């Protein structure tokens, strides 16, 4: 295979791997389920997307073929289902009584939560202990 194609595939696969590992690291490091959802979204969008794009470029090197079409289909299914699953988790967590982690004092400006009824009082009584408060869900 050509050098340029090889380089493109390497770049796509490595950046996809970067986003996969970073998103998973975020799932371990971030404080609560709502912030972890963003990290999980990273894995679902760019991690999977760039990796599959790399595979797609590699297989397209042999000319247009079914493998590339199927990779595009896999990616399309992933990208269609991922936000719905994420939203389902978020909705279930909210209605299940999980309180979103907030940094206290940052709620001064803007049109911020308070009329969601999603247990804002628990968010308010969380101690203002800086960035890594560990989440008030534990």
């Amino acid at each position, binding site marked *: 295979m050509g050098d340029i194609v090889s380089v493109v595939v390497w770049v796509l696969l490595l950046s996809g791997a970067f986003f996969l590992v970073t998103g*998973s690291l975020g799932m371990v490091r971030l404080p609560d389920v709502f912030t972890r959802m963003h990290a999980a979204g990273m894995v*679902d969008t760019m991690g999977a997307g760039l990796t599959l794009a790399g595979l797609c470029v590699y297989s397209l090197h042999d000319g247009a073929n079914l493998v590339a079409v199927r990779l595009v289909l896999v990616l399309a*299914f992933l990208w269609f*289902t991922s936000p719905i699953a994420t939203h389902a988790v978020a909705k279930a967590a909210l209605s299940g009584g999980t309180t979103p982690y907030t940094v206290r004092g940052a709620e001064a400006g803007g049109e911020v939560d308070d009329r969601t009824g999603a247990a804002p009082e628990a968010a308010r009584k969380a101690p203002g202990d800086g960035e890594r408060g560990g989440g008030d869900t534990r």
Partner: protein
Amino acid sequence: MFAVAAAAVLVSMVLAMVRAALGPTAYDRVLALNNIGAKTVVLIAVLGFVNGRPDFLDLALAYALINFIGTIAVLKYIEYGDLGVGTPRETGTE
């Protein structure tokens, strides 16, 4: 080069599994589980290329759909307490 990608997927799966094991709430675990499923889809695709036989992509397709449905089913069970139809949201949550 595909081995590198497969290794990255495996590492990220281990990290997500750490979250699934630690996860204080059930929602953390469901989220991690859904994420592991998405990574499994990628892993199936990559492993096909590692073996030089990209025929497993159909499995990846089916896995993507089943993973989604499984996540939704687990969440519905957690939220409503059963998988029956027609449970209104207002009465099911508490």
